[in-house]
């Protein structure tokens, strides 16, 4: 999700990563942005990528693994084409987020942290999406859906399923 800053009058050149010096725009602390960059590209952090970062930067493998497993954002396994984040924040919790998760499981057959066998959907549970007044909320890719009832999920998932059908035909 490392984004390029669009300039005031057009696009700026993408930020470059100086692997050798572990520098990110002249500053240290590149490990997390690097992992984020690879996750955007691959969808997850593979063993190969970790080895690659180690080879190119010299950061100990233990430290890379340490960081990659500490933060919730980094996934260690391949994910589906659509990522569903079900919010389990306070407001969503008291507005029956549990029911949303269960209904999602009914619809997709997989629970939190799992991916459907066709690699279409990955379900994740997140702490808070910051849309508390629309609770309960879930996010599919970059779209947020609020004020849900467990029965609504079939309708919410439909367009994402259709996209798959179209892509397949």
């Amino acid at each position, binding site marked *: 999700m490392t984004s390029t800053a669009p300039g005031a009058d057009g696009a700026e050149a993408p930020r470059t990563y100086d692997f050798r010096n572990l520098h990110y725009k002249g500053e240290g602390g590149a490990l997390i942005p690097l992992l984020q960059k690879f996750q955007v590209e691959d969808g997850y952090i593979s063993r190969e990528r970790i080895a690659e970062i180690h080879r190119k930067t010299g950061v100990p493998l233990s430290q890379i693994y340490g960081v990659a497993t500490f933060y919730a954002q980094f996934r260690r396994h391949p994910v589906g084409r659509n990522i569903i984040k079900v919010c389990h924040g*306070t407001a969503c919790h008291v507005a029956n987020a549990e029911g949303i998760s269960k209904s999602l499981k009914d619809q997709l057959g997989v629970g939190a942290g799992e991916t459907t066998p066709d690699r279409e959907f990955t379900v994740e549970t997140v702490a808070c999406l910051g849309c*508390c007044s629309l609770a309960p909320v879930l996010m599919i890719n970059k779209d*947020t859906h609020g004020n849900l009832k467990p029965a609504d999920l079939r309708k919410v998932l439909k367009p994402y399923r259709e996209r798959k059908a179209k892509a397949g035909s």
Partner: protein
Amino acid sequence: MRILVGLGTCGVASGAGATYAAILAKAGPLDGGCRVEKTGCVGMCYREPLVEVREDDGTRWQYGQMTPDRVDRLLTEHIGKGEPIEEWLVWTSDGKGPETAFLDRQQRIVLRNCGVIDPEKIEEYLEAGGYQALKRVLERNDPDGLINVIIESGLRGRGGAGFPTGMKWRFTRLAPGKQKYVICNADEGDPGAFMDRSVLESDPHAVLEGMAIAGHAIGSTQGYIYVRAEYPMAIERLNIAVAQAEARGFLGDDVFGTGFAFHVELKEGAGAFVCGEETALIASIEGRRGMPRVRPPFPAVRGLWECPTNINNVETFANVPWIVLNGARAFNCLGTANSKGTKVFAMAGKIRRGGLVEVPMGISIREIVNDVCGGIKEGRKFKAVQMGGPSGGCIPAELEDTVIDYESINKTGAIMGSGGLVVLDETTCMVDVARFFLDFTHRESCGKCTFCRVGTKRMLEILVRITEGKGEERDLEKLENLASLVKNNSLCGLGQGAPNPVLTTLKYFRAEYEAHISNRKCPAHHCQALLTYTINEKCNGCQVCMRACTAGAITGEKGKPHVIDHGKCIHCDECARACRFEAITRV
């Protein structure tokens, strides 16, 4: 005349994107020079999507629930004929509309531009007086005087702990070191809090300006914004704002031509609640696991890359330009003896009007819940408010006259926190709320301190046991004992605050815990394992519940009311979820 569509995350989640597209597509042929623009969040999340019609003289008409199918009528009647549509009106700038009460009690300093300007256009921020405060402090070139103004204003850190902002700046200024840093903590991790997201999405330049002013005060040339990755829109708008400010020379090597250099860079968080703690946040920027360290030395002395570092929260920075422009006096005349100014609250839960409100310190909880937010939904009874997120606590309805200031809130056992205020009604089980927070903190504990890592886990196990109807007499005593151990033996606020939800619910709702343990009943009818499922007269014998039942506990003939065998029922809730006629009663 302009049409403005509220395109914050809340708005977009409610479908404002489609409304915006519909207006753009249809407004083109209209004459009269009507422009269609984007804006941020007004705070009325409960009426999204919001569309505003703003006349050239500044009169504002706000419409709520503006789905795309309402666009045609809006354009023909209000824009075309100049006849406002009364029944859709939310409020108008001349005090009409059903929702004026929501805004009447508010005093907007932090949210001054939210929902007013287009956050992606620096021109609009400039028109609203933007970057004037930065210009003024640079022209005066008196960092000590500036720090005195901030101290005098009484501004305290809005991230939760409430440390005086000016003092923090002074410590960092006085700390020896050539390179110093300013960090904006935008890692808004408290579930139930979203005011920082809204400010970043709706008025990003105010935060940048506040940071640059802080940079001047402490003698720093580099700022970082540590923003959580769950806020893609905030990140996008911040990136745009930084690029615009650099292009205009409000950030960069020579700000306002005064020779002052200040750069801002974004750092995306990677999803760890503990990174809201300042030393953990620094570790994360440095590319390490986000684990807190012992303080002192405080970041003001030794922070990022071992250099003196000043860390403030988004809302704190957004206050700064206003204070500089309006003076310390204008700020410290608001609020109570020790808590000055205003506080933004993210209102959520079982209230009628959920959204963002900015109220002066010293207002009571009752006034916020009833007067500003319209009371509890569906006529239910107000039970408690949860304040301060996982480190905060529940304040019961009996204490609704508690006023909002740092000290009064602390006295109840909760904390001010970052400003998430989740309102709970009689259907919320307090033991379950405590369990929810412990489930959160035990997962988010970084694992450094044994008491936090293991203690929260043990507390969670007890709470789960109680909500499952397996609680034991001695459990409450054990909980209290563990709570004090975790509180006193953890390094950072996460561990020290983790027991608060348990301690406050035990303090104010002990009877509810006892009902779970002694009577095996959940008074709020929430905890599934303690419910009795019965079938009521609404049953038409459709047999859906019978098929859904995993325990074979439901019997009955087609077309006739069914019966649940309580001996066989395993409380799985499948029948209630399957039933389409509300025929399953849970007591």
